[in-house]
């Protein structure tokens, strides 16, 4: 099955991924994504009925922290890389809720 990625799909994925593509990039992205998906379709050849999806390779389970405070005031460090800060906070464009 050959995947044809349309403008709408690229637009939608752009909204999800917060990426804005130029006309040229968009055409390239349509082509690349189409061929990658064609390639990924190869997985369809395999029968995976009754196979559990494996997200972790090892059966490591139950890793917990104790409920103990381990960090103090690190505000200065946390803000050190901020493109814009004000009054100890990160500045962002005005949000809907304000």
């Amino acid at each position, binding site marked *: 099955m050959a995947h044809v990625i349309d403008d709408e799909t690229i637009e939608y994925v752009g909204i999800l991924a917060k990426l804005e593509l130029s006309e040229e990039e968009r055409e390239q992205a349509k082509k690349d994504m189409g061929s990658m998906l064609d390639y990924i379709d190869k997985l369809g050849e395999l029968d995976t009925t009754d196979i559990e999806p494996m*997200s972790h390779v090892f059966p490591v389970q139950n*890793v*917990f*922290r104790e409920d103990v*405070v381990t960090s103090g005031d*690190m*505000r200065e460090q946390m803000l050190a890389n901020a493109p814009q800060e004000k009054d100890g*906070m990160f500045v962002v464009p005005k*949000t809907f809720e*304000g």
Partner: protein
Amino acid sequence: MEKQYETVIGLEVHVELATKTKIFCGCSTAFGGAPNTHTCPVCTGMPGTLPVLNGQVLEYAVAVGLATNCSITRYCKFDRKNYFYPDNPQNYQISQLYLPICRNGHVDIETEGGVKSIGIHEIHMEEDAGKLIHDEWEDVSLVDYNRSGVPLIEIVSEPDMRNAQEVIAYLEKLRMTIQYLGASDCKLNEGSMRADVNLSVREVGSTELGTRTEMKNLNSFRAITRAITGERERQIELLERGESVVQETRRWDDAREVSYAMRSKEDAQDYRYFPDPDLVPIQLDDAFIERVRAGQPEFREEKMERYRREFDIPDYDTRIITGSKHMADLFEATVELCHQPKKVSNWLMGETLRLLKEREMDPEDIRFTPAHFAKLIDLTERKVINTTVAKEVFEEMFDRDVDPEGYVEDKGLKMVGDGNALRKTVEEVIAANPQSVADYRGGKEKAIGFLVGQTMKAMKGKADPASVNQLLKELL
């Protein structure tokens, strides 16, 4: 004939858990720090950081699940919910979609029509977002990540409620249960309990669900009630006009009593959930669940039963006292010390409730200790102080948790127990007020009240009015 509509309501309730630290890092969850002072690389989403689950979060979540009759998911995982918003530092929220910790529970609420069971679809664990503050001077917003990563459970009900009264009863029930567990203080006004209302309407008799909307930003029971009424009306109006309800998230503006859609073309509402590869699965065994079950407290219904058996106090008092876990604890601990359930209850029903109202406080905010409370009751019982003084001392204790004994001592508020001193004062009062004495002797019983007052005044309040009264009668 006019169509009759039924409202169908389900709730998504977020509860901030009372852990000391955040869900995935060792930052404090304490309220009120200066912005971003309770943050670290993990909860600000610095590159290279990884989450590690706070075990207490799991315990609280399981405890709430058991208390709401849920089945506990033995093998559960965390998933990432992906969406961009500045309050969400990683731009994904770690939550649970595929295998939530609790499922298929219910709680019983009391309604006008009797007891009703409200189904709980699931409870899942997740992290809270930071806070966005609108800057007053510039057209920008500011982000404070102190709340980012504070542990939450989200309790998702079935669409089993039909009106605002049931919704409030359900919320009260959840709040009480969770407070009893000590898993959260559940304050709507401070945001440690938040409810989103999913509401649809349908014609009475229909079994199909209508299209629902989700209402956010409801931070009081009043707001919830008004939002339900408002949304019901809005949806019915749409349907009556032949239009259809759009499935969407709406924001309630309680000041203006209207809601508006939070839609944006930039919000695809496609969260691309997938298991978080940075966190390992949780496998719970019977021993763990039994340990949490064994730690469950006596809940309100059982407590009321027991109060009825053990204490001779009015049912009304029992309801009020057990309505707050903190007040019930205070009551029981104080009774344990002074063995005067009735007196303790009276103080709680009277002065305590009065002061709570006056100070605009919740019962959970009561600060005085059972030891001090018991001492105060003891002082009044032994007639060391009289009722008027006791109320004054109580207020001091309520506000600053003073030790009543020390306070009475320091301020010299003890009643004068010396019979001779009192007798002498009474004799002086009789001598100084011949008119009143004559009135009393002439049959005006009330005149004695004036003489009691004069005596108390002369004793600077430190006498037992009953004894004064008795002595006056004797001498007259």
